[in-house]
C-alpha cells in the first residue's frame, strides 16, 4: 500500500489500483455522513479531485493518487458512509482505477514514510 500527502491510499494489483482515504484522514474528518464516488469510465489525472467525503460539519475533496480510468466505484458507501470511519483502509475503498502509469504508484510514500510524514504534522 502507498500513500499520498493528501492522505489517500493506493493498492496496486496488476494494473488495477484500489484507492481510498487513510485512517488518519477519516479520523480528522470525524463522522462521515456522505460519500460521492466517481462514475465508472471517468478518466482521472493524479491530483484531480475525484470524490467527495462529507462529515457533519464540512465537505472535503478526495484527490486521485494515480492517473487512469475508473473501472469500479464502491457502491456500498452511498448507503453506509460510516464505513469510512469503521474500515477506511480496506472495505471503505472509494474506487478501482486502471492505471495509465504504474510508475506513479512507486513514487508515493510507503507505510513507514507516511507514518513519518504524519508525525511531522
Amino acid at each position: 500500500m502507498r500513500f499520498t500527502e493528501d492522505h489517500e491510499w493506493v493498492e496496486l494489483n496488476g494494473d488495477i489500483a484500489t484507492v481510498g482515504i487513510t485512517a488518519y484522514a477519516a479520523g480528522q474528518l470525524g463522522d462521515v455522513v456522505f460519500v460521492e464516488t466517481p462514475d465508472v469510465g471517468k478518466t482521472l489525472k493524479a491530483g484531480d479531485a475525484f470524490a467527495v467525503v462529507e462529515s457533519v460539519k464540512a465537505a472535503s475533496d478526495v484527490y486521485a493518487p494515480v492517473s487512469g480510468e475508473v473501472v469500479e466505484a464502491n457502491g456500498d458507501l452511498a448507503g453506509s458512509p460510516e464505513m469510512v470511519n469503521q474500515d477506511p483502509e480496506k472495505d471503505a475503498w472509494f474506487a478501482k482505477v486502471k492505471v495509465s502509469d504504474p510508475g506513479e504508484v512507486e513514487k508515493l510514500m510507503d507505510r513507514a514514510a507516511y507514518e513519518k510524514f504524519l508525525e511531522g504534522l
Partner: protein
Amino acid sequence: MADDLKSTVLHDAHVALGARMVPFAGYAMPVQYPDGIMAEHRWTRESCGVFDVSHMGPFFFSLNDKTGDRDADHAAIAAIAEKLGPRDLTGLKPGQIRYTVLLNDEGGMIDDLMVARPCIEANAGTLYVVVNAGGKERDFALFEAAAAGKATLKRADDRALIAVQGPKAVDVVSEIFPEAAGLGFMTFTRLEYEGEGVLVARSGYTGEDGFEILVMPSVAVSFWNRLLADERVKPIGLGARDSLRLEAGLPLYGHDADESVSPIEAGLGMAVSPSRRRKGDFPGAARIERELSGGLARVRAGLLVEGAPAREGAVIANQYGVAVGVVTSGGFSPTLSRPIAMGFVPPELSAPGTVLTVIVRDRAQAATVADLPFVPHRYHRKALESV
C-alpha cells in the same frame, strides 16, 4: 494556532479534555472533543451537554442616575436600549429575558441578542445583555452611543459563560443550584457559587431545556469541572452546537442573518413587538412595516435535502431550474439522519411541502420545504405547565 487569538478562561480545560481547538470569532474554541460531533450532538439530545460560550458578549448596561423608583429606572434604561431595536423592553418583568435584534437604518440586522431585567429589584435600572461574539465590540459601541452619557456599559466577557443543555440539564444544575429547577424558560436569577455571584438563566440555543450560566473567572474552572464530574454530563464543542441549533431551526447571525436581512425575512417576527410596530420608533421601521404589510421579498425556510448535504452558499432553484434563493446554513441532522438546511426563498415558495432543488457541485438535488424547527423544541415553559 495564531498567537493573536484570544482564549476563554476554560481554554486549558478544553485542551486537557483533548479538544480540537479552532479559531472562531477571534477566540481559540473547541470545535469538538474526542467523542466527535455526532456523539456529542446525540448526547446533548439524550442527556446533558456543557458548552463553553465565553467568547460571547455579556455585559451590564446601567442607568447613571437612578431615582430609586424601580419601575421608572427600568423604564429609563429600557428606553435607551429600545432605540436600537424593535422589541418592547420596558415591559420586561424582574428576572425576565427577551430575545431581540439590533437594526440598522434600513431595517437590516446588526446582531441578535438577549436582554434581561435583573431579578433583584434593587438593581432595577440595569439590563443584563448578551450579544454574539463576532460583532460584540461594535455592539458595545452602539449601546454606548445610544446611552449618550446617561448609562454605562460594563462588559462581563472576562467571565465564563457556560451553557448546560439537554433533557437532564435541570437535574444536573439543580444539584448545584436547587433554585434553578424553579426557573421557567427565558427567566434568570442570581445565585452564588463558592462565594461568587453567578447568573443562572433558563435559556439556550439547542432547542433543549437548559441553562446559560455566567460565572466569575476565579471560579469558572472549578464550576466547569464540577459539571463534568456528573456522569450525565459531557463537554460539547462548537460543531455540535451548530448542528443542534440547525435542527432547532434557530438562525445563526453571520450565516442566516446579516446587515441585509430584516427580522421579518429571518422569521424573527416575535422580535418586533406590536406596541413598537404601532409607534414605528426604531431603526428601519418603514421596511419592517412594509414587509409585515405584504411586501416581503424572501423568507427563511427549512429544507429537507435529498442526497449530499447542501452547505451555506448552495443555490436554491425552483422546479424549472431557476435560482430562487440561497442556503444560509446546511449540514447533516444526526437526529433525523439526513441532510437539512435553511435558506431564503420567496414567500410563495415557502409553504411546507413545496418541492425545490438545491445545487450541490453543479447537480440539482430535490429539497422539500419543511416546518421549522426540524426537531421539536423542549423548552421548560412555565405558562404551559400551569395550564
